[in-house]
């Protein structure tokens, strides 16, 4: 039998050599690939897509429309008129009675409650007050009130709903806590926001505006 200088048979030596090469190859191949399920891949892709769409909407499309949003009391007075065409003032996403509206205004904090702050706008006959939500910010108001983002543009309904969730989360986590830390009754604030009303019920007393921006002026 042929032996090498360390007295190992050549067959064994060859097997050891190929075994080592095989192990190195397996190690290299294993670390060259990242095996993930198709579902998780799609979810990750959708998540990125949703984040990009929500960011682009919140930072670019929405502010442009909000810049021309009506003052709250003027809008409410118009919507309260009998037989008023709400489509001239708001947007609809679905077939039905729900309309979404944007507002922009400056007012004074009247009261601070557990789930909203009440803000008084305008003076004299033009005065009105609105509840600004600070807890229940979950609906489609921010997504749908501008009319700049439609289901057809996004494609899938789950993605469309996820955009609403992202927008609401952003407001709940980035806008509300800072505002609640400083807000006091009597302060003047600037606000932009969105709200929804049901045409069947008209302008009710208890609807809440979902804020997009809240700025304490003094």
């Amino acid at each position, binding site marked *: 039998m042929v032996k090498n200088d360390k007295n190992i048979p050549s067959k064994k030596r060859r097997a050891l050599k190929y075994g080592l090469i095989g192990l190195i190859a397996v190690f290299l191949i294993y670390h060259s690939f990242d095996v993930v399920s198709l579902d998780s891949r799609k979810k990750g892709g959708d998540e990125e897509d949703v984040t990009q769409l929500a960011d682009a909407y919140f930072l670019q499309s929405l502010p442009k429309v909000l810049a021309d949003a009506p003052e709250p009391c003027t809008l409410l007075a118009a919507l309260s008129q009998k037989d008023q065409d709400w489509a001239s003032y708001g947007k609809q*996403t*679905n*077939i*039905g*009675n*729900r309309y979404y509206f944007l507002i922009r205004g400056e007012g004074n904090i009247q009261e601070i409650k557990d*789930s909203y702050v009440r803000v008084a706008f305008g003076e004299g006959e033009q005065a009105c007050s609105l509840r600004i939500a600070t807890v*229940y910010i*979950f*609906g*489609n108001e921010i997504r749908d009130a501008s009319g700049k983002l439609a*289901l*057809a543009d996004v*494609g899938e*309904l789950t993605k469309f*709903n996820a955009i609403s*969730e992202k927008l609401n989360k952003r407001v709940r986590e980035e806008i509300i806590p800072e505002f609640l830390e400083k807000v006091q009754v009597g302060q003047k604030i600037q606000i932009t926001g969105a709200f929804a009303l*049901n045409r*069947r*019920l008209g302008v009710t007393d208890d609807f809440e505006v979902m804020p997009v921006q809240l700025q304490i002026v003094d």
Partner: protein
Amino acid sequence: MGILLSLLIACGRGEADKTQQKQIAIIVSTLNNPWFVFLAETAREEAESRGYVARIFDSQNNTSLESDHFENAVALGYDAILLNATDSDGSVANARKAIEAGIPVFCMDRELNNPNAATSQIVSDSYSGCVELGGLFVRSLGQKGKYVELLGLVGDNNTWNRSKGFHYVVDHFPEIKMVAQQSADFDRNKAMEVLESILQAHPDIDAVFCGNDAMAMGAYQALVAAGKDKKIQVFGFDGSEDAVSSIQSDGLAATVMQFPQKIAETAVAFSGEYFEGKTSFPQKTLVDVELVTPANVSIYSSYGKE
């Protein structure tokens, strides 16, 4: 002789008009649930009012039977199919048969998981409705309490759209705990049995959220039998006749009103547009749903009839 000839010609013309009448097949998941009966009947009435011939096929919640209906509809030369699917995945192949045969399929209420399997899908915005219901639920419980969720059919997208919308809101409130979640297949009797069993293990719950009104009524019945109907709030979804009556008499806490009339009318209107040559339709059309509570129930009729 002349009169006889005129009559014969008139009859012949009538027959010719009849053969030119467009035919619509309305294939419905089940006629055991009054909500679907209303949906199917409204679609038929709307189709007939537009001069079409319409026939209702009951799939009895059976995908195989639904498949037979599709084969018959294709063989009999129907011009359009309005589908209320038995299963979001299982009905895809059935709808495809019609699409491949050149017959448009308009889905009503229950959606298909493949957008290419239907010409257009007209569905309630169940997710958003349950987001709103979730908000009311949290407020009603004072952001604190234990609850049970009764799910509908696990193969139906509506089951999950409703559940997801509800949880999106409720899960943000850590002091609200779900102690049990179980399917009762959208069925009243099953919901009653399921809740009776859950109450043995969890007698101290504060509320029950149900994916439809039939289950809500079954759950409420179980609570009445256990003498807990005044303490435990029940929330449903649909706007069925008995749910609306129950809210009026301080039974159910709330429901979400769907509008099957609008769904059916839109599906028939889309069929009409298709007959006139339109080929492009929105993949999905959403119909609003509305929250019905003791405060506003007086302005609502069952099934959102208008």
